[in-house]
């Protein structure tokens, strides 16, 4: 079953003094996210990621199109009780302590009063803030606020979790913890929809990704599919002091790092290259086909728009 269905969702703002000029924040978007998926919504800053999330949360209204979450309309309170949302760069009522804030959100989400205190403690533990429950949020660092933000998004055990730039403001340890948490949510059967412009996070976590730029969907697919297309080249790595002339003759593109040499060459020359290394008695470490990384795919999808903006400039 689809957890999220987006059908021709569109958002246009009118700008200018007489509000005549349309500004497209999101061009008709069609997406389906299945239950239990970790779905990455990728794009550069200002691409339309946050606009899409705000439309899904009912914070702004679409110019056209519609969306359904868990088969319900986006303004249905029954649906909202089953989703969690972390906004970008979250800010909370800073006069409250972390525990009071989570308790308040638990009340609004309809969490059973008898279980609320236990759930608050559990979620604080889960985001790595077990001792910060009694501290007022105005004393929290950016990273701690981000953790509280994640805590409030998962407090009521939602089926679908929307996270807008969840790694923002976190140190490498924190990013790792959030990645682990997202994987854990997937194991619990939850659907995670998260936006990011950090491609390595998406590559490491997502089952599928969509790439959006200037409000336009550029591509969507499984990370494995997007990154599996082979260039027809191989990467040969060996240990040795220098590059044998025979390999240069095969047209290898070589990079020497200390005692390790990496060479990218045509797949057709792979056997000849291995033979040349054997003749020179050099220690072969690996031979791997060169695949498209998510970054390559991302850049490839963004290239036409970048070129158009460049031409316009």
């Amino acid at each position, binding site marked *: 079953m689809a957890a999220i269905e987006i059908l021709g969702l569109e958002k246009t703002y009118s700008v200018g003094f007489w509000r005549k000029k349309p500004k497209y924040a999101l061009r008709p978007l069609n997406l389906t996210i299945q239950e239990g998926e970790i779905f990455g919504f990728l794009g550069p800053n200002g691409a339309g990621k946050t606009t899409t999330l705000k439309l899904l949360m009912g914070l702004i*209204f679409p110019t056209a199109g519609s969306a359904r979450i868990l088969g319900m309309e986006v303004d249905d309170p029954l649906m*909202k009780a089953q*989703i969690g*949302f972390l*906004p970008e760069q979250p800010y*909370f009522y800073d006069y409250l302590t972390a525990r009071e804030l989570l308790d*308040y959100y638990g009340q609004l*989400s309809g969490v059973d009063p008898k279980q609320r205190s236990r759930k608050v403690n559990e979620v604080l533990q889960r985001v790595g803030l077990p001792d910060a429950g009694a501290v007022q949020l105005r004393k929290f660092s950016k990273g701690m606020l981000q953790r509280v933000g994640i805590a*409030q998004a998962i407090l009521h055990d939602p089926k679908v979790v*929307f996270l807008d730039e969840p790694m923002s403001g976190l140190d490498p340890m924190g990013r790792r913890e959030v990645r682990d948490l997202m994987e854990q949510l997937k194991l619990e059967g939850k659907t995670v929809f998260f936006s990011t412009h950090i491609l390595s996070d998406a590559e490491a976590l997502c089952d599928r990704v969509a790439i959006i730029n200037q409000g336009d969907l550029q591509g969507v697919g499984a990370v494995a599919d997007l990154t599996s297309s082979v260039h027809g080249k191989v990467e040969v790595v060996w240990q040795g002091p220098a590059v044998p002339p025979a390999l240069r003759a095969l047209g290898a593109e070589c990079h020497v790092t200390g005692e390790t040499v990496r060479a990218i060459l045509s797949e057709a020359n792979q056997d000849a290259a291995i033979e040349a290394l054997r003749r020179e008695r050099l220690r072969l470490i690996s031979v791997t086909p060169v695949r498209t990384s998510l970054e390559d795919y991302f850049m490839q999808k963004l290239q036409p728009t970048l070129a158009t903006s460049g031409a316009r400039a």
Partner: protein
Amino acid sequence: MSARIVHIATNTFREAVRDRVLYNLIVFALLMSGASILVGQISIDIERLVVINLGLTAVSLFGMVIAIFIGIGLVSKEIEKRTLYTVLSRPVRRWEFIVGKFFGLAGTLAVNTFFMAIGVFGSLLYVSRHFQKQDGWVLVALYFIVLQFLIITALTLFFSSFSSPLLSAVFAFSLFVIGSFAEDLRGFAAITQGATRWLATGAAYLVPNFSALNVISLVAHAQPVSGQLILYNSAYALIYATMAICGAVLVFERRNLK
């Protein structure tokens, strides 16, 4: 009432308390103590009149300032700081948020008025050594002041649902001033002719009639307030505040939270 409205109202009240809004009570207490001592020394036979006039006017002004300055930020601050995003992404309807905010601020003002009322009665006791039967009318004047707070809170909430905090404050304060002269405006409308009469009458009935809700002078002179006026004023404040909140809800239901 929906449990979510109660939770939002409680949080709004807690915010006001934690932001030290009730500290104004200290200033009020000092003002009343100082005035009572001073009045006790310089007035002869009119101590009660001066204390009631001064006390109730101060209650009204302090409350109005709090209503306007908290009210203008009730919605706009939540949008600006994006705290609203995590509230409205939960099973909270937009109208519940507005109504919860209204009750939260109204509750803050009621508590504030309660403590200020104790100050007024304390001063009365100090200057006249005992309470009199007609002092009960002071409670009616305080009730009317609370009704004024309900109207101005609803209006401020209405303005803050679509305009900036500064403009909301200007609109609300202007309406408070104009509304305090609503009876004069109605008198003016009655003596004009033609289109001006229509315009003046429309404006006179559109602005909140705060002058009808002001019985400070009456109770200071120990005059009774009719039951009919209490009934009319209660109904008027209820209807006016409900209409202003409905207006705020209508605007807010359609607002894009950019």
